[in-house]
């Protein structure tokens, strides 16, 4: 149990560093920016305490905000996603899954892809609308949401596939 938390803290820090130091400097065609740190919320075990999920979601958003100098924007979006994570999991997975179940490609690729797409799209929609905060130039905002979502989803699935293969290789 302790090693599990340790691993999660490590992933937490690595994702933040990756997002802040590398991914946020990418701006494909001036519209698409990959957002990877949501991967942390996706990979938490299903039965994890809701307080833990919500607080960690808020913290990851807040720390990224502090690095990017956009106080509150990422924090608000990730907190909403963290709070609604359990109902969204119930949408895509059976109710009979056990508490220690971790969503991933290795534990059912189909539901995980759908779950990822839904989570990332919702998260980025929230994020970009908080950022622009107006319906003015709606088309531009929608294009940014969709392109960033595609990049982010591809990146998350690739990362999950990589770790899955590594684990498979270890085993």
């Amino acid at each position: 149990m302790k090693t599990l938390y340790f691993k999660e803290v490590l992933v937490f820090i690595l994702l933040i560093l990756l997002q802040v130091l590398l991914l946020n400097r990418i701006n494909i065609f001036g519209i698409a920016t990959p957002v990877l740190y949501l991967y942390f919320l996706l990979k938490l075990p299903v039965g994890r305490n809701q307080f833990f999920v919500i607080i960690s979601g808020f913290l990851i958003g807040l720390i990224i905000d502090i690095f990017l100098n956009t106080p509150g924007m990422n924090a608000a979006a990730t907190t909403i996603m963290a709070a609604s994570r359990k109902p969204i999991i119930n949408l895509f997975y059976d109710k009979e899954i056990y508490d220690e179940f971790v969503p991933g490609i290795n534990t059912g690729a189909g539901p995980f892809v759908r779950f990822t797409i839904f989570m990332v799209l919702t998260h980025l929609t929230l994020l970009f609308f908080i950022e622009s905060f107006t319906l003015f130039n709606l088309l531009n905002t929608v294009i940014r949401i969709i392109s960033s979502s595609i990049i982010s989803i591809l990146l998350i699935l690739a990362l999950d596939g990589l770790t899955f293969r590594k684990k498979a290789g270890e085993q």
Partner: protein
Amino acid sequence: MRNLFNFIIRNSHWLLAILLIVFSFYLVFAHNPYQRSVYLTSANSVTGWFYTMSSNVTSFIHLRKNNQMLLEQNAVLENELFSLKSYINDIAVTDSSDVDAFVRDSTEQTQFNFIPAEVVNLSFSGVNNFITINKGSKDGLKPDMGVISQRGVVGVIANVSTNFSVVIPIINPMFRLSARLKNSVNYGSISWNGERVSTAQLGELPKHEIYQAGDTVMTSFSRIFPKNTIIGFVSSMGKTSDDNFNTFNVELATDFNSLQDVLVINDQFYEEQKLLENSLER
């Protein structure tokens, strides 16, 4: 009650989430000028819309009152228009050379032009009285031009600016004008003793000159005013400092307290006469 507590405990993570989301949005608005500006402007447009609606409603309620006010104003303007129209008719009938102030003399009248002007300032507070009129050098006014009202002599222009002129009236101690009684050829001099605005003094008349109350006082030889311009009417015998001369109190024809429109006399031959007389002096 227990159910309520259970409900709260079961859903406390939602409360936490809402709390954190509210805090996040607080951070967004507190630290991001762009979001704050958007929030404030949208709030402004909402309040602006509200104010517009309320003003629409109140203006509709006040329509009747405004209508009444417009009617009253319309009546006032109608009256003014009517009086102005009749005034124009009066002017059209009486030619400017027919000013009541003159005893008509057909041979001399072409010499003079009249420039109408309005009084913009009257200073009758002390001894040093003056009148300001709204015509100046732009309209051809020069110092030493005479100024008359519809009834009689007002004064002489002392200073001229582009748009205004200052008139020294009869009721100024500096003012001197030669004058005579209507049925006499002897002339004296009009001056003002500084006592009453409506009364000037006709002095330096020969002792044998007698008067009847109401005798007309007119200008005699003057470079400034046409001959026989009415100055006023003799009212009483005045005090005199010299036994050889008589002084009469003259009720002035011009009412300085209600003076509004004046005419400035433009003497066409003024320069010619002055040049001729000055050449003799040299």
